[in-house]
Every structure is written in C-alpha cells, then in structure tokens.
C-alpha cells in the first residue's frame, strides 16, 4: 500500500516506520497517489500565532476572545484538554480553565500569517478556495507532472513548510471532492493528515451523523431528525424525489452527499455578491425589544464587514423565520448605496415593522446586496431626515474609536437588548 512519511516526505510501500528517517508519522492509503482535492485547516490558528509570537505561552492554556462577557474565538490545544471550546462564553471557559491566558484577537497579525500561508499554497496550485483566514480548499488535479510528485506529497510539504517557516501547524484532508476533504481534515486534528478514498467512501459515511455536512446547522439537523434522518445510512433509504419533495433544492444535494458525491469545484473566491448576517435564537421570541436588539447587532455586523471590505449595498435585505418555520425575505432598494449600520438598521427595521407585530420569530437576519465600491455609497443626504448626517458622523466616530480601543469600547444601548 502506498505510504508517505510526513516528516521527510519519502514515499515507500510497506513497514511501520519510514525507511529513510525512521520516524513513525506515516500516512498510507491505496489511493494516496491519485487523490487530489484537499482541505487544509490550521490548528487553533489564532492561538498558534500568539504562541509563536510569545514562546513563553507555549505550554500555557491560551484563549483568544473578547472580554469577560465575550465568547471564545479560539482555544489552544492545552485549553481544549480542559474542555474549553470555541464559541463558549468566556466566563464558562474561565471556570473550566481559570489559569488560562486570555488574549484579545489581533486580526491584522493573523491576516499577515494567513497571507504567507496563501503564498505557500500558490506554489502548489492556482485552484485555491479560501474559506477563512485559516482554512482553504486546494485542487491539485493535474499538478503531478509540474511538481514531479503526487498531490499528497505536495500537501505534506505544505504543512511541513508552514510549521518550519511560520511556526503554525495545520491538518490536511485529502479526498476526491470538497465535501469529503473537509470531513477528512477534521478526523485527525491537530497536525493530522487523513485520506478518504473513493473505494471506502460509502462505507465511511454510512454510520456517521448527517450533522457532519457543512451547512447543516441545528435547525437543519432538527428538520432532518423529524424525518427520521440522523445518519447517512438513514439518508440512503430515501429516494431522490422524496428528498427533493421534502427539502427542496437541499434535498437534491443531500441525495448526492449521501452517496459521497459533491460536484462543486474548487474555485477562487467568486466576487462577493452580498454580505449578510443571521441568527437563530435559542428560544423563539416576539419581544419587540429583543428583536430590535438583534436587528441592530446584525446590521452592525453587516456594516462592519462591508466597511472592512470597502463595499456598500444598493439593496437591504431582511430575512425572518417565524416560529412556524415560515421563511420571509424582504428587500428594499436604496436610492444611494450604503455601508452604514444606521441606514441598514433603519431600512431593515421599516421592513420588519411592515411584517406586523406580535409574531413569534426563530430567526432574524439582515444583509446588503447589489454591492458597489464604498466610494459610491452614502453620498446623498435625505431631505426629510436632517438628523441622518449627524448619525452618520457619530457612526464614523464610533468606528474610529473601536478601531483603536476594540469593538466593545463603545456600543449602542440598543445593542445590549
């Protein structure tokens, strides 16, 4: 069976250790030389970068996140042993791990390292699809001749280089499509290398839970569970029409995924078409103050991302899901594109108000679409709203303060509801 030493990159056929360097970090698989779609995910990326910057932190539990009231963004593996998980409220994390070193995220630094990693990837293939700062899909199909080595070797070399030159580790998933590559990278974290071959795909998936599917969140899981679908095996019992009837276009996709099929290509990020944010509540609510608070926070997040990307939207979108699961979306075209939280919020709020009061909701989201460069936005005042200009200045001042002192340095009262 083809095998590869992840330390010295020697390819060989058999034996428990590498015949060249004698180390045991081996990956072996029948299809090792033919698979070419990969997912690379850095291990506890923000924490790793911080540890690299300050070697004293190396064996301490490190948590990256915002403030006591915030949530854990990343926890290093030392902290994870103690039960700390990302997205966990900070107070809970500190209960589990009182000696943790809590650091505010330094996004600019992480972006810098991410860019270097991207540079390494560019040496392998032009077909890179970054998902975030610390993970990406790579398609190395047809690069064997160019590199004189199969994709598996090149990927092992990539993570080795990341470790040697940048001091961060990553886990690789290698398979024959994106869906499986993403699952594979998670199988052997940290610093792992997992392969899912064509031959074992069905067998591999059969007992696993459908929540492994990227994009199936809690709500999706609930919906699947109501139809008796918990594992891929359950999914295989459904025919294509049945799934489509029940879950619409997602049903079609589920049918393919159940068979380990995923025809999406690895594409360099398509230009952003919209920016949006939504949240499913822990509990359904019809409390107008709570809903208003969510609406504002989401508008602010959308605005933050738009500002970071230098984009603005001509259309504001409101998305709500009522407690009876009815999904409603409303869009409103603006005369003048915007990236301001205030205008996104006000527009979304006006649309929300037209939906009628007293309804219980389970999900709320806002967004902008029909994007244009920021210099074409917020240029036109409103005759009937002379205060708008003042609010815009206040928002710009707030942005400047937050850029300097952190996101929580100044918040609107509305955001605390």
């Amino acid at each position, binding site marked *: 069976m083809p095998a590869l030493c992840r330390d010295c990159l020697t390819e060989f056929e058999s034996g428990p250790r590498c015949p060249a360097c004698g180390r045991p970090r081996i990956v072996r698989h029948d299809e090792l030389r033919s698979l070419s779609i990969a997912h690379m995910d850095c291990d506890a990326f923000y924490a790793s970068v911080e540890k690299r910057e300050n070697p004293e932190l190396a064996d301490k539990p490190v948590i990256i996140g915002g403030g006591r009231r915030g949530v854990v963004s990343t926890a290093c593996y030392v902290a994870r042993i103690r039960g700390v998980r990302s997205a966990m409220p900070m107070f809970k994390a500190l209960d589990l791990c009182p000696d943790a070193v809590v650091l505010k995220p330094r996004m600019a630094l992480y972006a810098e390292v991410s860019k270097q990693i991207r540079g390494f990837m560019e040496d392998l293939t032009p077909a890179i699809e970054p998902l975030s700062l610390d993970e990406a899909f790579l398609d190395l199909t047809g690069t064997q001749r160019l590199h004189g080595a199969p994709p598996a070797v090149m990927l092992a070399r990539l993570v080795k280089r990341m470790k040697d030159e940048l001091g961060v580790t990553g886990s690789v998933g290698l398979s024959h499509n994106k869906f499986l590559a993403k699952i594979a990278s998670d199988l052997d974290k940290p610093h792992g290398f997992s392969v899912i071959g064509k031959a074992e795909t069905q067998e591999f998936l059969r007992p696993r839970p459908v929540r492994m599917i990227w994009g199936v969140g809690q709500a999706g899981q609930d919906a699947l569970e109501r139809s008796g679908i918990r594992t891929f095996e359950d999914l295989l019992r459904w025919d294509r029409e049945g799934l489509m009837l029940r879950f619409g276009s997602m049903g079609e996709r589920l049918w393919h995924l159940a068979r380990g099929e995923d025809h999406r290509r690895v594409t360099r990020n398509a230009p952003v078409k919209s920016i949006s944010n939504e949240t499913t509540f822990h509990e359904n609510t019809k409390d107008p103050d709570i809903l208003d608070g969510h609406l504002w926070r989401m508008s602010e997040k959308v605005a933050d991302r738009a500002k970071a990307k230098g984009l603005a939207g001509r259309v504001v979108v409101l998305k709500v899901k009522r407690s009876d699961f009815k999904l409603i979306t409303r869009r409103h075209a603006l005369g003048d594109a915007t990236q301001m939280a205030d205008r996104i919020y006000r527009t979304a709020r006006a*649309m929300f108000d*037209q939906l009628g009061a007293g309804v219980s909701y389970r999900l709320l989201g806002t967004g902008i679409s029909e994007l244009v460069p920021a210099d074409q936005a917020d*240029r036109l005042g409103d005759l*009937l709203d002379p205060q708008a200009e003042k609010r815009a200045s206040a928002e710009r001042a707030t942005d400047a303060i937050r850029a300097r002192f952190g996101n929580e340095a100044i918040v609107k009262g509305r955001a605390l509801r």
Partner: protein
Amino acid sequence: MKVSIERATLLKAVSQAQSVVERRNTIPILANVLIEAEGDTVTFRATDLDIEVLDRAPAQVERAGATTVSAVTLHEIVRKLPDGALVQLTDDSAAGRLTVAAGRSNFNLATLPKEDFPVMASSEYATNFSAKAETLRKLFDKSKFAISTEETRYYLNGVYMHVSESEEGRVLRCVATDGHRLARIDAPVPSGAEAMPGVIVPRKTVGELRKLLDDDDMDIAVSVSETKVRFATPDITLTSKVIDGTFPDYSRVIPTGNTRRLEVDATEFAKAVDRVATVSSERSRAVKLQLDEDRLVLSVNAPDSGAAEEELAVAYGDEPLEIGFNAKYLLEIASQVDRENAVFMFNSSGDPTLMREGSDTSAVYVVMPMRV
C-alpha cells in the same frame, strides 16, 4: 347585449380601461372590463380596487345589457382591427361568451357575470371644483418626477395636492418628494377648492389622470373627500382612493437662506450634464459643479472608466463653490424648465439646493447634493 361601435372610439375607451387593470392578478374578475350598454351609450368600467375608470362612448345599442370580459384581450383585439372598422359586440349570457365581430374577423371571448364586478363604493365629496386641464397638467406633470417608489415610506408614493398659503396668496399646490429631491408647484385656487382637504394622489392615479388632460381648454371636474379623489370629463370619470398617510411637513425642507445665485440656460445645462455623465458607468452618476465668476465647469471623474469636463458661460457672482449632484436628478429638474433660464440658489456643498424658473416662484425644486 348587442352594440355596434366605431373602432377608434372603442379603442380609446378600452385602452384607458386596460391600463388600470393590474397585469398580475389573483382575482380573475379584476382582469375584466365591465361593459354596459344602454340608450345610445356604452360604458366601460375597470378597476384595481384602488382606482376605477369609467369611459362613456357613443354606440348603436340594439339590445341593452352588460357583461365583463378580459380587458387586455379585448384591447389587443381592437388594436389589431383595421382602422375605420365597425365593431359589433354581442353578448350570449347563457353561453357565457362575448362575440367581437368586425368585417370578416370573429372572436369569441369568455365572460364573467357582471354581478361579480366590484363597483367602487360611491362617497360624499366635500369639495367640488372645476379646473382647466392645462392647470392640472402643470401641477402634476412638473411634480410627478419626484414621487418616491420606496414602499417603506408609502406616504411619499404620490403627489400631495392641497391648498396652501404662498407669497402671492392662497394657491392650489402639488408637492412630491422622494427625500432626495422635491417639487412644489402652485396654481391659483379654483373657485370652490378653498376648503379642500389635503390628499396624497397615488402615482398610478397621476399617470391615469394625465390621459384626461391633453386638451388644454377642457374643464375637469374635480371632487375631493378625505379618502377619495375624482377627476371627470364628460366622457371619462377617474375615481381613486388617496394614500392613507400624512405627508411630511415639506416647508421646512425648502431652503430660504440660500444666497449664491447661478443663472444658466436650462437646455444647454441639461445637455452638458448629459454629455459629461456619459463617461461614468455607475448607476448613480455624480456630476461635480465648479462655480467661479460667470463660469461653470461640469465634471465627472469615474476612476474605472474615464473623466469628462465641460465649461459653460453662466451668470454667477458669488464666492467660488464646488458641489456635486446625481446627474439624473439634475437632468430631471433642468427639464422642468421650459420658458426662462434656470436659477439655482446654493448655500454650501452639503446643503439642499433650490432651483426655479427665472423669478417665477410658482414652481420650486429642491435637490440634495451628493458627496463627490
């Protein structure tokens, strides 16, 4: 029902009816026009539940009666019939069919019973007056470009018609705004209109009304209540609900302290704006105005596609000023000027600008500048 009617007469009546009918309809009867024949008149009635239009046309009525038939289909048929044809409409209520016959053409259309047709409830009109078509045309034509299409501010989706006090005394006034520009048009108060309640006439009604106003000297009977407005000629009666909302206090939006005065030939100005805006492919093209002693430089700078500049001789005697506008807005207000020069009154590059025709204050426009 059996009637004979001249094709041109029929076409005019039916086309007015079909334009009121909503294209996308969930209630079948609303796609139909109600045809009623009696005496020597056929009336055509169509509605979208907010607007009702009633057309009366002279015809030879052999047998009185009434039925309803698809407005769009009937319009298409009549439109395609040869000019000068005599059209015969025969209703077979037992079969639920209407036959349209002209020369050798014969059409058979499905009908719906006339009882199902929703006739707009009649109401009491507190105010009734008569206005010349020319007057109403000025009031609505010059204001309608500023009507908002924003559904969230539904009270801006029409023209606010009301009686107001101006420098020249009481006037019949129409105001429209979308928050970026505003038009305020005045006309002398017709006798009987003094106590009229202010109403917001919806955009679609303004469009339908326009078809009644082609003949300058035609007297239009206007009736207004709190909830409805009616415009009538001897042949056509247009009744519409008004927008149930409060029009914002526009008077505080109209700048009174703008002192920098620019006078320019409106046509030349509009042409120049249109020319320089060509280089920009943005949806909202920004034009920069640079004003100096009797000189106006219009420019557009679109980093991705190019730049343009044009100089115009103007009358301007104040301090130099740089101010930007949406090109479309400038074009639209400049095209309202038809007799004299356009006079712009500026304050600063961030404040609303006022525009009027010469020294005439009966038509005033306000436009918000744009950051450039």
